[in-house]
């Protein structure tokens, strides 16, 4: 099934074929995940939101008009989910976060050593975080980052430079100087 095009898989998904949708979702998973990570800054939140967005895509696949546009459509859904997630997170932190210092322990133990780095990434301004995450976690070149974010190469370099300096400053503030 993996050799089928997005259009074929979308058509099959519309007919209720979950396997077809699973292949489609797996194909676009990484892009959606990196987008969510760029917006949210947390690997665990990004995972949750990506899954929610994918499931919503499955339920609403009937509303997708152009089957070839599944990739941008699902990314758009994920972005909207991120926005609502941030709103919920702000409310939660406002009422609960003041009593609980750490919201929850990361379930993936292999990422524990990077906890402070992740906190710093999360604190970065969105315009700095998105290119930094796309560059490092998406494994994309500066040119690809510029293309996906619809920016010039020099702007991406400039944002990466600023993001690096801001990250360094945040790590120092957290007391995590390397």
């Amino acid at each position, binding site marked *: 099934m993996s050799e089928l095009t997005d259009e074929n898989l979308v058509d099959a998904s519309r007919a209720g074929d979950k396997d077809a949708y699973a292949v489609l979702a797996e194909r676009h998973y990484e892009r959606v995940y990196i987008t969510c990570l760029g917006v949210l800054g947390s690997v665990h939140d990004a995972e949750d939101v990506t899954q929610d967005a994918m499931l919503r895509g*499955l339920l609403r696949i009937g509303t997708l008009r152009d089957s070839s546009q599944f990739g941008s459509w699902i990314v758009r859904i994920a972005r909207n989910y991120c926005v609502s997630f941030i709103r919920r997170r702000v409310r939660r932190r406002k009422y609960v976060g003041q009593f609980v210092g750490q919201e929850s322990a990361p379930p993936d133990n292999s990422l524990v050593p990077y906890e402070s780095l992740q906190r710093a990434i999360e604190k970065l301004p969105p315009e700095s975080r998105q290119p930094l995450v796309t560059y490092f*976690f998406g494994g994309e070149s500066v040119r690809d980052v510029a293309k996906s974010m619809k920016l010039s190469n020099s702007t991406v370099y400039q944002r990466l430079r600023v993001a690096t300096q801001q990250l360094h400053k945040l790590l120092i503030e957290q007391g995590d100087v390397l």
Partner: protein
Amino acid sequence: MNEDCERMKDKMADHLFDHLSAPDRDALNEHVARCSKCAEHLQALKDEKALLSDFAEKVGAGMQQRKEKMTEAIQRCDLTEPAGPRFSWAAIARGPVTKLAVAAGLLIAAGFFAGRLLPARSADIGQLQTALETSLKASLEEGIYSSLIEQVKRDRESALERHYVRLKGELARQSRYEMNEIAQMTLTASRTATEQRLEELIGLIEAARTVDHWQIARAIEQIESNRLQDRTRFGESLVSLASLKNEITPGDPERN
């Protein structure tokens, strides 16, 4: 840390992404070789970049596991579950407004068919005529009454308007007259008061002059009296002087 160090910080960040020209890279290396703080800073940035790459690698390593979890979730997903608020004819059909509209339509249709299907009763012409007459009369009377009311209202309004204009003119005239009267009275009163004051002043001046005349007369009288007294005394003095002279030289015939 001087200005040179601050400028080098940007170059260090660019150096991390291989976005530095050869001369800039040489300048940076040269600076870092002689500035220990900048060397430390550059090393920290390099370490952070390495940590980021490491972290990204770890996150990437867990990607397959996440995909599998998502696939399981997709398989568990109930496709009949509503996918949040969206435009749907079925949802609209199930809505309360639709139900109300359908109920109203049914009622109207039932009324229509009941009217059409029930047998029509024979008409009573006399009763119909009476009813029509009463109705027409009532409607005509109502029309005449309302037009009459309108006419009376218009007449009353125009009369009121005329009276208002007349009253306004009369009031203005009266007001002007009153103002003139008040002005004249004020002027007269003022003139009378001024004359009275002048008379009083003249009286005072006259009285003062009389007193002065009297005092002058007394002074003149006193002077005259003093003069007469002085003359009498002078005469007596002359007499006494002459007698004294006679007593001193009695035989000198040439002096007599």
